[in-house]
């Protein structure tokens, strides 16, 4: 991990292409949240040829279902959820211009191929660092599906959200490249 790179949303394609797996980044700007139930709805909207509740081009979706905010806090604890559950819906969102995803854990081959084709990045946030991460979330508002509670789509305004480029737009993948360096198994 070299020096930290500051990036701002929406992500320009030149920025996406400049990011390499292993880069430590601080993200600022708007992020949109989404997890299982919201992804299902977004996917169904697109399949029906309808518009999404937010402009997705260049944006980052953060896979999170936050805890409720205590009074005086912009946002409750908000660490990443495991990403593979969103895999079935992801390639279609990438086709529509989604440029980044923040989560934790493995992605499917289909998602990685679509990331390469559509030039997008998968960032890993540290699972369980929910309080620390929430410190970077300055504003939070529900913009769609309030009936889903924690699973609603929120727009976060973040400053210096800490993440690591885990899979870059070229398909380089930290989950594949790093463990072998420490593996001792025969």
């Amino acid at each position, binding site marked *: *991990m070299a020096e930290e790179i500051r990036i701002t949303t929406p992500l320009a394609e030149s920025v996406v292409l400049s990011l390499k797996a292993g880069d430590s980044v601080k993200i600022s700007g708007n992020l949109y949240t989404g997890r299982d139930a919201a992804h299902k709805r977004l996917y169904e909207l697109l399949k029906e040829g309808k518009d999404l509740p937010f402009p997705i081009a260049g944006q980052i979706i953060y896979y999170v279902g936050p805890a409720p905010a*205590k009074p005086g806090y912009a946002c*409750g604890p908000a660490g990443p959820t495991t990403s593979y559950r969103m895999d079935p819906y992801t390639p279609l969102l990438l086709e529509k211009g989604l440029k980044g995803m923040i989560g934790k854990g493995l992605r499917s081959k289909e998602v990685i191929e679509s990331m390469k084709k559509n030039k997008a990045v998968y960032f890993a946030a540290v*699972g*369980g*660092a*929910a309080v620390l991460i929430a410190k970077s979330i300055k504003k939070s508002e529900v913009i769609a599906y309030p009936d889903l509670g924690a699973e609603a789509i929120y727009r976060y305004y973040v400053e210096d959200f800490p993440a690591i480029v885990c899979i870059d737009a070229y398909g380089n993948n930290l989950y594949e490249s790093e463990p072998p360096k420490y*593996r001792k198994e025969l």
Partner: protein
Amino acid sequence: MRKIDAREITAEVKSLFLKANFQIGKDVLKALEKALTEEKSKVGQDVLKMIIENHRLASSEELAICQDTGLAVLFVEVGQEVCIVNGHYGEAINKGVEEAYQEGYLRKSVVDDPVFERKNTKTNTPAFIYTDIVPGDKIKITVMPKGFGSENMSALAMLTAAHGAKGILDFIVDTIRKAGPNPCPPTVIGVGIGGTADKAMVIAKKAIARPLGEHNAHPQYAQLEKETLERINQLGIGPAGLGGNITALAVHIDYLPTHIAGMPVAVNVCCHATRHASGEI
């Protein structure tokens, strides 16, 4: 006969769920700090530092350690000389869960129907309660808010005697290899061997709550715990799955008698927070 008011049960359950969600155990913190001194990967060290700092913040500000405040799992030992008055046992527990999740700003993560409607119950109930009737006149409660990033990586194998300890070890290691970064490593791994398919998983889950650093009292099972942990930490998965030599903090194995034809092995995975708390009434 000792009378215990159901409202006391509610109050204790509430207090334990708040504690478990805000503060990790001293044993877990100690294990994480030890992991930080042993982890060779720089990224792995950074991840562990973030996790430890997160725990410090959560505890000092009384915030949930993780946004996934889990399904409410309880292991309760009820003394047979206890008589519960002014309410029903299960309702008292569920009320305690509901109050903790409402008043503690904890996320409600329960859907009523797992397949079709998936509607949030908005109370984080029902709780999942395992009750044992034991001698005495006390109620001992262990609560475990169980997150599903790790729960989803659990597995069951109906092995046979021919597989032996080696077969068990290989199955556990395979399960953790496949889980990779998903369950928020470094994990604590509960293993239940023997009993029936269902009972093996229950004791695996209960084993997670054993204090870190303690081994099974049976020397051969203790040895199996040590060997399995060593093999898991050779996988290279590391903290957050970003590479490293600390993939698990501990392997806790418990066992039960079983059928002559079988050797069930259940693996229940828990994230690095290993949230649980115990109390007695």
